[in-house]
């Protein structure tokens, strides 16, 4: 299973007005968490995801990203 990492040095509270992946404007106060996907594993991740399927990606695959993000968030919040 491919991996992800977090650039924890850049995790911060920030007010952002920017664009989402689909071009939607975002304007909110947020915790910024930078997810690093190893270049060598980008295709592996893409292969795990079918945007046309409502059950993709699989829960086990999603959990890798979710846990990395949530661990960073917990640490940032002092938990």
């Amino acid at each position, binding site marked *: 299973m491919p991996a992800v990492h977090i650039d924890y040095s850049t995790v911060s509270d920030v*007010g952002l*007005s920017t664009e989402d992946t689909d071009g939607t404007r975002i304007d909110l106060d947020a915790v910024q968490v930078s997810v690093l996907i190893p270049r060598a594993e980008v295709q592996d991740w893409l292969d795990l995801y079918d945007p046309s399927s409502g059950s993709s990606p699989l829960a086990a695959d999603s959990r890798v990203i979710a846990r990395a993000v949530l661990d960073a968030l917990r640490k940032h919040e002092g938990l």
Partner: protein
Amino acid sequence: MPVAPCFDPTTGASGGATPGGATPPALSVTDRTNKGAYTVTSGARSLTISNPDGATLLTTVTLSTDGSSVTVTDNASTTPSWTAAVGGADGLAYEVVVSATKGGATRQVAFTEAVNSTGLLGIEPVRVNLTDGTWTLYDPDNQVNTVSYDALTGQHTVTMNNGGNSADYNPGSGADFRGARWYKLLTVAGTQVDSADWLNIEFINNVRETASTFVQRNFFATTTDPTSLRNTATEGLQLLGSCWSGTPTNEQGTVAGNNFAIQNNALQVTQRVSSMRGNDRIGMAAMMSMKTNNTFAAANQRFDDEACVTTGNVYLVVGIGIKTNTTIITAGNQCFFGLRYIAHTVDSGAF
């Protein structure tokens, strides 16, 4: 009868024999030779002179640029001293002449001392005064009532009319920005900056967010189209520089294109945003904000590699907006800020 030249091969000192044939006295200056050129630092200067023949000494110092005389303390002694001024932007040079006269004959050691240009050391920022007549207010919907400037503190007070309550006045939202903005052409050393130039500009702001009486989102930035009402990533203002928002919060940050990033830190006071642009593209801005004792409080950055839709003249722009689309500005609401900047362009020639 012409005066025969006399040259001391040891010290390099020059002088002339008198018509009667008197020999000029010996003379040397430690670490200095006749016709030498030296670089010194500004401040206290002194010489150590060797005068073995007990001649009458005189040291004179002249500022090369205007020929003015510099006061030399103990100018008849073997340890004269004076003060070399700070070099300033262009540097300075002093002509120093040490003369020894005895029996009607004189020998001199003359040399030049240059004080390096201060260059980029301790540059004094340009203080912004929106009321000094060089700035133009563009306020399509009459959001601003008055602006005043306190020359003592450098602070502006902007008093508003009824307004806000629309994404059109939030520079971080929507595709339009109809908020008030002051603008002026940006010149460096008297030369208009072009969007193709490599421009570095630092914005140094004291913006008193929590004193504002409406939830502001303001900016001090560069742009190539200051009166545009469009504000997307690829058209319109295409800002690059500093921003601040808040009340009751205390938020400072950066803007590139129409993307804003702010940090909320109650202790931040002075905001420094360093930005780089050129090659007809928007560029990047990075912020360091500081507390009252100039210690670090927060930082962030934004960058945008979009091409400038409008190329050519670069402008400074100071804009007044709202942080949320539903912020209502009531007549008499105010915001307060003091702004300074340092701009320079860089030779973009090949390495």
